[in-house]
């Protein structure tokens, strides 16, 4: 197989509040022999909040990010569900509306760029599943996670709206019964935990404006995983991770029950199975202690 190579859109969180996600992404890519070219020119995707304020501006900025991936002639890989949503949504809208695309390109031309629509945009989770292949990953596992019950937490912006999300996936994901992250857990040798909240919202996007709603959603998610007998949770989204890992005090208070579990980024889980060290994966950067390794 030819070496897989992608343009990496890190997003902001991997560079700030979840440094462990950046570390583990690079560590896992190296183990798997995947080359990631970081798009250092990229701006923030707007996280669906800039979109509430100025739709056109957010389209122009996201188109610029994709244009840089196109310059490399590479598929863009994201490591944040919300980055994935906003980037893929921009791509979808521009690829299906010549007039809008022309308007956006008029602006990009001012800085010598053009959005063509030649690069696909996919989340690292699906790059591993669709392009690298879980069978191959399975063969590379050196430390099977067989003693662990692992609760997958999918995060909204990777599975909904499914029509958009499934434009890029090889196998369609059913948002009411998603399987990608479960499959990844199984490939790493772990046991998956089935629980009602696995495809629900963590509440991240209203943490400041609707703190109670946000805290209840986080609390319910962790409680669901705990009741499913999970040893830990795993998520492909750094924003979900922030919520589940750092907001347990608010969440416990909101639902009237102490909740806390170790929460791993999916890259950290894969990294553990591939034999990376805890230090390489940044396991010491969590608030909810990762005490099982």
């Amino acid at each position, binding site marked *: 197989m030819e070496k897989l190579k992608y343009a990496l859109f890190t997003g*902001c*969180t991997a*560079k*700030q*509040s*979840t*440094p462990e996600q950046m570390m583990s992404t690079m560590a896992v890519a190296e183990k798997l022999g995947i080359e990631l070219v970081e798009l*250092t*020119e*990229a*701006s*923030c995707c*707007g*996280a*669906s*909040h*800039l*979109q*509430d*304020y*100025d*739709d*056109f*501006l957010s389209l*122009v*900025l996201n188109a*610029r990010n994709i244009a840089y991936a196109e310059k490399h002639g590479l598929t863009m890989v994201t490591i944040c569900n919300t980055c994935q949503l906003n980037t893929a949504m921009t791509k979808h809208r521009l690829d299906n509306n010549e007039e809008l695309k022309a308007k956006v390109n008029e*602006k*990009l031309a*001012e*800085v010598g*760029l053009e959005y063509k629509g030649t690069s696909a945009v996919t989340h690292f989770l699906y790059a591993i599943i669709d392009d690298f292949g879980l069978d191959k990953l399975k063969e590379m596992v050196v430390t099977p996670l067989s003693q662990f019950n692992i609760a997958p937490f999918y995060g*909204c*912006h990777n599975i*909904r*709206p*499914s029509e958009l999300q499934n434009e890029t996936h090889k196998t369609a994901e*059913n*948002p*009411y*019964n998603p399987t990608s992250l479960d499959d990844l857990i199984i490939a790493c040798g772990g046991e998956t935990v089935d629980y009602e909240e696995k495809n*629900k*919202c963590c*509440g991240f*996007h*209203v943490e*400041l*404006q*609707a703190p*109670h*709603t946000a805290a*209840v*959603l986080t609390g319910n998610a962790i409680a669901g995983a705990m009741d499913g007998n999970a040893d830990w949770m795993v998520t492909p989204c750094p924003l979900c991770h922030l919520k589940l890992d*750092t*907001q347990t*005090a*608010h969440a416990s208070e909101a639902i009237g029950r102490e909740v806390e579990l170790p929460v791993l980024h999916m890259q950290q889980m894969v990294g553990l199975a591939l034999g990376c060290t805890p230090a390489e994966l940044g396991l010491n*950067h*969590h*608030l909810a202690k990762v005490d099982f390794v």
Partner: protein
Amino acid sequence: MSTEHKITTQKVNFKVFRFNADEDYLPYYETYDMEVTSEEVVLDILNRIKWDHDGSFSYRRSCRHGICGTCAIKVNGRSTLACKESMNDMVALFGNELVIEPLSKKRAVKDMIIDKGDFWEKHAAVTPYLVADIDENPESENLVSPEDAEKLDEADLCIQCGACHYACPAVEINEDFFGPAAFAAAYRFSADVRDNATSRLKDVNEEKQGVWDCVKCFECAEACPKEINPIEKITKLHQMAFQEGIAKNNVAVRHAVGFKKSIVKNGVLDEGGLVLYSEGPAIVKHIPVAFKMFTKGKIVPPWGITKSQNLDEIQKLVKSSSTVKF
């Protein structure tokens, strides 16, 4: 040309929610094994349960054409219009064991029938009609151009089935929250060129009940059988608040605007700076968690942020492409 297609049948096991608020203390599930043909829709199954198994089984339906909006229920947690949803598609999605439930179990009155009172109250609260001075004896028709009609973005196709409303987690937690269908209705009338309402946009922008408490989960977009995409309408209501100058200087609004400020400065987000700008003095409540995060290397100070390369491009684009001010 004959369009012959084969009708196939398969065995399906149905677990059906049963509850009679007048008699039962708790709901229970009844199981039915049936041969289902590829021609059938979910409503056919509800009919057969009632006609062949238990005459007391209750559900709402009227038009059987996806128009009246009464037959919405949940199949394996997924909202569906029973009269429109093909059984074949349901089996393809979920396999041969299907769970049939009302849209909201906690509002169940009898089996599939729920009390939709909260839905209608919230719908009524967004002034869901045109507010306009209408000449009662017009000389000619009051025409709306096709371009203006397009602005409604199909929000007028809503059949008030409630599928989105009862799929919305924010509705479940915050009982004041208007919910996706009410917002779609608010958008439908606010986007109408003939409308002169002044209070509607303000009402949907109020804290607690308003658009800013939407958690952006896209459950409503997924649930809607008419592809109204309510979250898209909510996003447009957010944008309208800025365009019409009624956005209030509150934490939600500053949070949206803060992204632009941060992008101009760094290209990327200054996460700590965003929280500080959004919260203002209320930032103190975040200090305990922020302190813990700091000790774990999760907080980068403003001077430590790696700015985007070619930041000048980003700044130039923000200048030339911004469409709103706040």
